[in-house]
């Protein structure tokens, strides 16, 4: 569910939605969500001074408290 959330948001922000790949590495308490986008779209998911990435992390942590987990968003370069 966390994975789908990030996928949904990322796809709405990038120029190449078909190149958005998200994977989830589930730990006991923490999930790592890895976001892969096309090289040209990196700036779009990070944003000025990382603002977009920060906003996504905020939403992600809101969603993860729902499932009583911690989630970390990693943007893969």
């Amino acid at each position, binding site marked *: *569910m966390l994975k*789908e*959330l990030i996928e*949904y*948001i990322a796809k*709405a*922000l990038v120029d190449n939605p078909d190149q958005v790949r998200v994977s989830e590495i589930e730990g006991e308490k923490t999930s790592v969500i890895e976001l892969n986008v096309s090289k040209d779209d990196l700036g*779009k998911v990070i*944003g000025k*001074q990382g*603002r*977009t990435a*920060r*906003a*996504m992390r*905020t*939403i992600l942590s*809101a*969603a993860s408290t*729902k499932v009583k987990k911690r989630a970390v968003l990693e943007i893969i370069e």
Partner: protein
Amino acid sequence: MDSIEVEGKTYEEAVKKASIELNEEEKNLDIEVKEVDTKGILGLLGSKKVIITARVRETKNPENPVELTPEQYSENLLKEISAFLDLSLNVKIYHQNERIMLLVQGDNGDLLIGKDGEILDALQYLIRLAVAKKFKQNLKILIDVNGYREKKKKALTIMAKRLADKVKRTGRRIKTDPLNPYERRIIHTLFKHNRFITTKSEGEGHTKKVVISPVGNKDGKR
């Protein structure tokens, strides 16, 4: 797609009939008024007749950007993201000062606010980006949940007025806490026409402090 001709006493009735006949929701229909026939005195008495032609709009795909308005798209985004948070919310849309306002109401809508409106701001920012991307124009979008922004605006106004009183009394400038652009605008607007007070933003990045100074003494130095 063929169009059909429907007759009704009122426009609404005709549209409803067309909707049933075509087995399609009203919002997906293209309607053209063909004839409005009013009989009787000023149309108040006697029979009235409206004839419309209706057909199903060809592309109903919600992903299609030509179909969706920025308003609908932002509402969709908001609802989709809320659904991931297990929230089902009631969204009302209207325009104010060239802004798209999305008013959210729901029992557990407060979960969308977060600490200091953190989640709400993040959500609003992402939705604005997505809308800007899709429609290639920057539209101002404001999301409010259960009147949170209104309450915050009131609290800010009270705080700013109190600080301004102090500035007037002491003749010294005062800085607020770090505020986001929307919050700063509220304070700037509040003192726009004030003869005794000037305001300006100070600092770097997204959140800046607002400096409230007495007029004619902008640096706060004597």
